[in-house]
């Protein structure tokens, strides 16, 4: 129930995390695990960024996160060998627990082996609607590729609940018309099946290089939720963002209203009183 929140912070592109990966400093990583878990993350995205290209480092990073929390991990990589190393390390550390592959594209060379891995490791998977021709610039192409990924995933034996489609959010500063295209694509993706797959975005892309990052992220998130978005990779430690999401869920009738709904939303993760 509720929007599935994927915490973005354990990513080697952030200076502190990149340095921690290179120095094998667990405490920096596990500090972000705790912060994001407390903030209510449903998954913790784990990505090495440019900090290392060594699969052993990725295995270390996945283990470091998984061993310190009960929150499921989102294995975020590009190369197939990184995914298999990460998934193997995860299963060895936690046994049965949800896990998310972030992500495949619609290219067969990626889609087919990653769906096999999803099936093998009982993982959910994010399918980003791009292929060898690049990122779509309109609604139709987004749907076409989303449909392809969805059908392939169902054929591979995944349930709709394990499939996340990502319509590719683009920077409003450089590609302003795409903001609206993505919203329309979200709405139409909800009609792919009943129940529909999850629809997820990498949110912060929309505000890339802008002056009003938090406001743009927050506003766009609420608009996307209204169109049917039910997952996002985002900064879960942004309190105003969390309040906006909680309010959107109330206004859409996805959660039952109570006067203290913000408090309830904050506490839903661990149930630890504030």
């Amino acid at each position, binding site marked *: *129930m*509720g929007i599935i929140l994927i915490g973005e912070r354990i990513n080697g592109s952030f200076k502190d995390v990149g340095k921690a990966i290179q120095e094998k400093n667990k405490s920096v990583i596990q500090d972000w695990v705790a912060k994001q878990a407390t903030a209510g993350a449903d998954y913790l995205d784990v990505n090495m960024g440019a900090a290392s290209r060594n699969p052993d480092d990725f295995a270390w990073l996945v283990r470091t996160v998984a061993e310190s929390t009960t929150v499921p991990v989102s294995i975020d990589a590009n190369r197939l060998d990184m995914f298999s190393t990460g998934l193997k390390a995860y299963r060895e550390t936690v046994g049965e627990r949800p896990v998310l592959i972030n992500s495949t594209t619609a290219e067969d060379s990626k889609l087919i082996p990653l769906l096999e891995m999803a099936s093998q490791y009982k993982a959910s998977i994010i399918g980003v609607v791009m292929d060898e021709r690049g990122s779509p610039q309109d609604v139709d192409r987004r749907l076409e590729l989303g449909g392809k990924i969805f059908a392939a995933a*169902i054929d591979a*034996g995944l*349930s*709709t*609940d394990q499939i996340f489609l990502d319509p590719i959010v683009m920077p409003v500063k450089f590609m302003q018309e795409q903001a609206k295209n993505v919203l329309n694509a979200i709405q139409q993706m909800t009609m792919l*099946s*009943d*129940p529909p797959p999850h629809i997820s975005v990498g949110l912060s892309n929309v505000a890339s290089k802008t002056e009003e990052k938090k406001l743009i992220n927050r506003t766009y998130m609420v608009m996307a939720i209204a169109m049917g978005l039910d997952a996002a990779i985002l900064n879960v430690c942004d309190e105003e963002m969390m309040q906006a999401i909680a309010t959107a869920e109330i206004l859409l009738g996805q*959660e*039952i*209203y*109570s*006067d*203290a*709904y913000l*408090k*309830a939303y904050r*506490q*839903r993760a661990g*149930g630890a*009183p*504030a």
Partner: protein
Amino acid sequence: MLKHEGVQMIPDTKKPWGGRIHTVTIGATQAEGGTRASTVTIGGSATLPFLNFEGACGKPAIAMEVWDVYPQDWPDLLKEPFGEVMHDPAKWAKACCDMGADLICLRLAGCHPDRGNRSAAQAAETVKQVLKAVPIPLIIWGSGNAEKDNDIFPAVAEAAAGENCLIGTITEGNYKTLTAVCTAYKHKLIAESPCDVNIAKQVNILAQDMGFSVENIVIYPTSAALGYGLEYIYSVMERARLAGLKGDRMLAQPMLCDVGIEAWGVKEARVSETVIPEWGAQRHRAPLWEASTASVYLICGGDLIILRHPGALQAVKKTVAELAGASVAPATA
């Protein structure tokens, strides 16, 4: 995928519930620091009531109501099965226990300023006597006067320390004293809301905000008798249960229905056949009214039912057994 003779059919699109109703255990055995012979656990449902082909279903428990003072205004028909023991809460409780009640609900009606104004010390003494008289768990219900209840609850909770009682009620406007007292003496809480799912959620959040675990709360969404607005309560209970099963922790509590007090307050239970002959014998009609009211609440998620008449107790127990046992697997093509 559903497969039929090797041909791939439509995908299985059933969506599982994301949540589960909390279990609440009432009572404590000697090993657990109390003196009960056994405990009662309610809740735990992973799907809608009695659909046990689909998932786990908690078994509803039945409590019988006992007062700390003689219930002067109860109808004779309701006093008849108990007789003289109604003058002594401990003996009355023992009789209910012998009749097959899962729990005793001790209502401290006599502490109400308009009904004797018994003191905190007297209430605590009654609690002790009832605990001594029966081996089953205890629900303790205040007098209904918020100010007086805040006065008696600390002594009552202390008198029952270690027994893991279910004590109520807290409301949106009056929750601090009882929540603190139940935290201190490790009792479970009844959270009351006036036929309003939003307030049901709010009261739970308020209790949690004081550090009380929402997994130790039972929701009392208020109750109504058959024919007297029961369908409003039904809808609230249905909404709360659906939200709880979908994963809303603040509405994933077991629900309590205070049936006896409502059913025995309406004319269908109180009026004799000498006044309205076509309604038939009150002796049968009144307990049936109570049992019918309870049965409706069972199917919208009632986990704990409070009754007054032993005839109703037997009828509701039978209904629970039949519903719990009668489930069949869904028809397959």
